[in-house]
């Protein structure tokens, strides 16, 4: 029942915004103050987290190598899975960020009678993740029509493509369906897969439930609970927010404030949670380093510069007499050293 808390938390957020926004005078709090606070926490927190990572030294060269490394000429190097050049690292990172390549390689291990262990390809996480992330990206881009004026052609084109099927009025967005579908599948995966269920925590369930609630409130607002949802008033408020002159002088339905409050929660929660993988994917040393530690020496930033390297020859020079006394074999005998002197 670890996920129950996530549901309770989201229900509490919905109640706070739904009831709170109906109190006279609180519209500015939910419509202006909270969104500003949330976006400041998002940008500030994001930059802070990235800076903290940037300050952390990488003591060792630790790229994950998943293929044949650069070797002799007649051995073919796997350039994507064991990159040695920056261009290869960039190609690997590109595929990781845009196509979630490492999830594509996910395997499921099972024990069968015998006993025999099998490793079967398991691409569900990759597929659901791809579905979710791209529809979410599309939805965020689409929302820009409420924040910019005049709306450029490319933005209308994206929206037109998203509502291509012309189902109902207002037209159904395909990304809405894909987002909710992707979230349900990702959530279901955490429940159905026993191993994943065992390691799932509240901070895994909460973002899924929160984003699901954001999607549902958005869909309700667009298609069903349309009372006092005049898109002109909403765009006026959004334009006011991004031009630092927000005004709310009309009644906007509670569902809008709920949607906005949940989005604000997501933004504020973002930098302090697992969602920081958005920045972290760029900062991961196991992905962004080249496997060139034999060609280029990786210096540990922790190294104390006052500690000089001490070779074995130097070590023996320092302790030769004691070593000979203790009967430890030495490379240069005492007599040879005395002859040189």
């Amino acid at each position, binding site marked *: 029942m670890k996920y129950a808390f996530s549901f309770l938390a989201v229900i509490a957020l919905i109640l706070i915004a739904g009831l709170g926004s109906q109190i006279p005078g609180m519209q500015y709090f939910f419509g202006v103050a909270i969104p500003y606070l949330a*976006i400041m926490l998002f940008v500030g927190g994001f930059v802070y987290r990235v800076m903290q990572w*940037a300050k952390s030294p990488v003591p060792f060269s630790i790229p994950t190598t998943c293929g044949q490394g650069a070797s002799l000429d007649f051995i073919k190097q796997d350039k994507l899975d064991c990159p040695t050049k920056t261009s290869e690292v960039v190609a690997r990172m590109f595929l990781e960020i845009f196509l979630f390549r490492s999830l594509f390689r996910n395997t499921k291990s099972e024990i069968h009678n015998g006993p025999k262990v099998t490793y079967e390809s398991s691409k569900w996480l990759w597929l659901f993740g791809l579905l979710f992330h791209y529809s979410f990206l599309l939805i965020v881009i689409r929302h*820009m029509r409420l924040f910019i004026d005049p709306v450029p052609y490319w933005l209308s084109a994206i929206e037109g493509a998203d509502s291509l099927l012309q189902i109902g*009025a207002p037209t159904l967005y395909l990304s809405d369906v894909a987002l909710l579908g992707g979230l349900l599948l990702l959530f279901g995966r955490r429940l159905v897969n026993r191993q994943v269920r065992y390691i799932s925590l509240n901070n895994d369930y909460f973002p899924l439930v929160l984003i699901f609630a954001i999607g549902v409130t958005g869909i309700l607002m667009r298609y069903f609970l349309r009372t*006092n949802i005049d*898109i*002109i008033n909403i765009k006026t408020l959004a334009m006011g927010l*991004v031009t630092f002159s927000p005004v709310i002088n009309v009644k906007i339905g509670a569902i809008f404030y709920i949607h906005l409050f949940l989005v604000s929660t997501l933004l504020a929660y973002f930098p302090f949670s697992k969602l920081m993988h958005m920045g972290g994917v760029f*900062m991961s040393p196991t992905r962004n380093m080249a496997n060139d530690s034999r060609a280029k020496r990786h210096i540990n930033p922790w190294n104390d510069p006052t500690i000089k390297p001490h070779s074995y020859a130097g070590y023996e020079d320092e302790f030769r007499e004691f070593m000979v006394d203790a009967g430890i074999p030495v490379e240069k005998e005492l007599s040879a050293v005395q002859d040189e002197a």
Partner: protein
Amino acid sequence: MYNKGTIIPGLIIFVLIVTFPIWFNGLKAGTLPKPELPPGGEKKCVMPVEYMRANHMQLLNQWRDDVLRNNDRIVVMVEGKKYRKGLQMACMKCHSNKEKFCDNCHTYTAVKPYCWDCHLTPKEAASKEETH
């Protein structure tokens, strides 16, 4: 701080993307749309103003289904005047200027209804009649 050369530009790009609406608009909120009221001075619509503002697209969709799919073009009565159900037959009789009425808000919010894929605006309809 390590890898300044890539992390600082990366963070700058991130902040630029997040603040996109701020610098794209240049702090200009744009002009609010003011849809033109019926030039003929009609005051009553088929539904109250608030309902029409929020739900006109759903009403039009319903009418489209009624007329084209269910063969149900009943007559709508508003203030004793009869209108036949339909965008051109009812709505545009009063709101005769598509550019000043419909497009005004639709352009502002980047809504592209596909009504006009089939329908003619009163202006277009008039020019068609002349040529025939």
